[in-house]
């Protein structure tokens, strides 16, 4: 019994050691998508923050038909002009049974700017939202309301780009130590439960024999 204790202790120490060495692995993939300037940007990660390079991305329309296909670049990014008004389902396949999906609703797509009306080819290189030179015009030149709207949209898109990126990055978090300890706690809780049930059975059997 004493030896069992030592072995169990040793094993437990191994677990703890593993725990502190563990820089969290990939066994989950995540894909984030946001709309900007009429274009959809996606970023894909493994749970440890590694980017999913050269992974397949499929875009499905509301009827489940694949409308667009592409591959992520080295930064795990993939962007495209939405071929229809949405809602769009974006599916990431990172091989070996890894898969993640995200959905962009119609509203998401419209908020992000003008939706392209015609299907257009996907771009794999993420492009900064285009800023037109007309943005410099200020002062007395009369600007129509529409132009102003357009200018504002463009400026906002440009200014918000880093913030959106940051948001996307902060949403993605790996495994926290809290979860790991919670898991270990559950396992030992379950162990207690099983011991209790088996013990109760044993006692019951003993009671019958008496």
């Amino acid at each position: 019994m004493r030896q069992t204790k030592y072995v169990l202790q040793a094993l437990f120490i191994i677990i703890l050691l593993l725990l502190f060495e563990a820089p969290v692995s990939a066994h989950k993939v995540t894909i984030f998508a946001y709309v900007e300037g009429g274009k959809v940007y996606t970023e894909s990660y493994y749970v440890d923050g590694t980017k999913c390079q050269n992974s397949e991305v499929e875009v499905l329309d509301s009827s489940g038909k694949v409308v667009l296909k592409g591959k992520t670049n080295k930064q795990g990014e993939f962007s495209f002009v939405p071929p229809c008004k949405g809602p769009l389902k974006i599916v990431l396949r990172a091989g070996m049974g890894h898969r993640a999906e995200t959905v962009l609703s119609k509203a998401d797509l419209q908020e992000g700017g003008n939706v392209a009306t015609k299907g257009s080819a996907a771009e794999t290189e993420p492009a900064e939202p285009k800023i037109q030179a007309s943005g410099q015009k200020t002062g007395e030149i009369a600007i129509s309301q529409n132009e102003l709207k357009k200018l504002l949209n463009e400026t906002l898109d440009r200014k918000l780009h880093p913030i959106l990126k940051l948001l996307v990055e902060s949403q993605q978090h790996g495994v926290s130590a809290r979860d790991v300890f919670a898991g270990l706690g559950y396992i030992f809780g379950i162990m207690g439960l099983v011991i209790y049930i088996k013990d109760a059975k044993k006692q019951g059997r003993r009671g019958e024999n008496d």
Partner: protein
Amino acid sequence: MHISEGILSAPVLATGAALTVVGTAIGLKKMDYDKIPEVAILSSVFFVASLIHVPLGPTSVHLILNGLLGLLLGWSAFPAILVALFLQGILFQFGGLTTLGVNTINMALPAVVCYFLFRHAVTSENSWVEIGGAFCCGFLAVGLSGIMVALSLLFTGQSFINVAKLILLAHLPVMLIEGLFTVFVVKFLKKVKPEMLEVANATN
């Protein structure tokens, strides 16, 4: 090697779940009262091992340790792996609840197979047989799991040979590490508590 949700078709999921239920039932039935803490400890080892990550090119793989679990637990590896995978699914979103059955059978069945293949070898007096058995146990269990994952993906239209090749190639380092790790654990247990290996044989 956890298969995510939404990839496999319903029949594959159902088959996996059914086999897992059978395996877990056998495991629970064979689990002795005194062995419960050991099962729990090894379940936590499995739970944590998946966080140890071996970066490998564009993708990354992690330790699995199902060979070790099989060797020490026999059929009880089923409940141990089931609980650990369930918690990984809930807490880390590895795999998923619908694929729990398939993922459990993929990792636990090779564990049990390796237990029956190598349980005698690791208790051998001949230290070469012992080391070889322990290494093959850790090595093969991961390999067999890879093949089972490829088999599960077979019905999704992916070519079996390609997927199997990819998975086995990606897991080769893990297979080697686990083989060595199993040798180390067997050696350690023989010194500290040889009954742990023997007992596993006697009760199953």
